[in-house]
């Protein structure tokens, strides 16, 4: 079986609202796959259906060869999940949380001892394994959740926004773990994120917007659809300059930094285009070259920027709120 995950027309309604609409995709074994999209775009709902926690309203999905609706038990045995929100027992120690997991997955005791030692070392929690989780920072909890998701050596590891709420250093460390893990074990990793720079490092990226699949390809191929680099020209009369560049046969749009022009080879086209603008009577105040990013792909596909900052802060608040409530 070459496909770890296959979804066909996967949909989920909440009341009258369609959170995921006809999603079809397939993920190969051993792939590092990102589901990218804004908050509220249907990522967590998709993950919920693939991990058997939510029943699809329509469509089918197979994970590790089993149907998520018809064979949830078999699917659950093959997957590891790191959830977006907290999911540890704060009153138990780190090791007890792993112990619970090992027992509920029916792992032999010897396997538990060996795996927990290995994984606690991998996520650098070996020294604090006998402390209750309520003493742990957000980053330590996330690492422990990752270790726990790997205890039973899943074929497919699902991670829902694995780095939300973590400081940049811990985020980098988390990614290092994921890459190490993939090299060592060949596990298929399916993650959701709204961080574009994180999606860049994945094998393939699916862009999910308002519950529908907007694009699916490698980061390089997605960026190639933009036709190369983007040049930003700041000029006084934006409208006239836009017409002039249009007349040159270029794809022009207005951005926050002035006029954005997609060109094949940015650095070489700068002098030529600046000269053209100046000939037309437009004094160029500033030029900015951007190599295409997934952000540009996202803007092109959805017509707006992915919101990272504001929802992030809100999410961090929600996470803290949940943690506070569960501490009792």
């Amino acid at each position: 079986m070459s496909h770890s995950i296959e979804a066909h027309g996967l949909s989920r309604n909440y009341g009258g609202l369609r959170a995921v609409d006809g999603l079809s995709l397939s993920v190969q074994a051993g792939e590092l796959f990102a589901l990218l999209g804004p908050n509220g775009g249907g990522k967590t709902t998709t993950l919920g259906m693939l991990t058997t926690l939510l029943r699809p309203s329509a469509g089918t999905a197979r994970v590790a060869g089993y149907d998520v609706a018809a064979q949830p038990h078999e699917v659950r045995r093959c997957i590891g999940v790191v959830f977006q929100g907290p999911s540890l027992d704060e009153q138990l120690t780190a090791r007890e949380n792993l112990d619970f997991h090992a027992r509920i997955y029916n792992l032999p005791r010897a396997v538990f001892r060996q795996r927990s030692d290995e994984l606690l070392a991998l996520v650098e929690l070996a020294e604090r394994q006998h402390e209750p989780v309520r003493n742990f920072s957000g980053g330590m909890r996330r690492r422990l959740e990752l270790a726990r998701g790997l205890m039973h050596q899943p074929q497919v590891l699902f991670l829902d926004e694995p780095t939300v709420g973590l400081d940049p250093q811990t985020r980098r460390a988390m990614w290092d773990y994921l890459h190490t893990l993939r090299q060592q074990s060949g596990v298929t990793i399916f993650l959701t994120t709204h961080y574009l720079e994180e999606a860049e490092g994945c094998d393939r990226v699916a862009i999910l917007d308002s519950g529908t699949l907007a694009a699916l390809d490698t980061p390089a191929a997605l960026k190639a659809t933009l036709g190369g680099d983007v040049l930003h020209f700041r000029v006084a009369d934006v409208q006239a300059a836009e017409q002039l560049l249009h007349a040159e046969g270029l794809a022009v749009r207005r951005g926050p930094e002035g006029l954005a022009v997609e060109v094949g080879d940015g650095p070489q086209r700068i002098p030529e285009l600046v000269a053209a603008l100046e000939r037309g009577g437009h004094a160029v105040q500033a030029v900015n070259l951007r190599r295409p990013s997934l952000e540009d792909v996202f803007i092109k596909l959805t017509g707006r920027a992915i919101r990272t900052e504001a929802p992030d802060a809100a999410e961090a608040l929600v996470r803290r709120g949940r943690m506070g409530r569960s501490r009792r």
Partner: protein
Amino acid sequence: MSAFYTIWLRDLTRFLRNRSRIFTSLAQPLLYLAIFGTGLSSLLSGTASLGGVSFTAFVYPGVIGLTIMFTALFTAISVVYDREAGFLKEVLVSPASRLAVALGKVASGATIALLQGLLTLPLAWLLGLPLTLGQVVQLAGIMAVLAAACTALGLLVSTRLRGIEGYNVIINFLMMPLFLLSGALFPLAGLPLWMDVLVRINPMAYATDALRQVALAGAAQPGFLAASRLHPVAVDVLVLLGFFVLFLVPAVRAFSKQE
């Protein structure tokens, strides 16, 4: 089987780690005994109407029942807490059968409630009710069935509810009538029909009835116990088992279906 034991073990570990909770929930029956026993017994002219035992001793079996009901219903809230704290997801995404998980929850809640109930037994000696080993064993058996029935009821409510506030509202709404109509505070003989109907659909009435017959067996006049009881102990226990199944089946079904 392993999932059942794992769920049970975790809940017991949490319970035993939380010693303050054990002692605060012990204070409650003492408070009830002191208040009801002292406060209400001053209203009664003599003790003859209670088969020769003090009012406090008469109330005592009801307070055992209350302790168990209270602990069981508030232990079953752990399903709601686990959902809010996110831990339930870890369980639901695991290959453990939902049936085993739900039964493990009932078993752990019932065990904890039973332990709390057993801790109230030493009070019997203070109230002048020296219990024999046989009585202790019988009382423990009745307590276990009551604990299981109340935990199943708690699981039913907590699985169908989304928030902690909602659970507390429902449980508080349930708990007082269940206790007041259990016969804990007054004998159930000669009640008006409407009250008699409410008593007979109340699981706590059967538990109190059985606990009282066993706990007061040595101390009260046999004629008083026979005249004031609802049913013989064995029938009470069977009815309680019936309530247990009545709560357990929909609770397990709801737990298995939840997303």
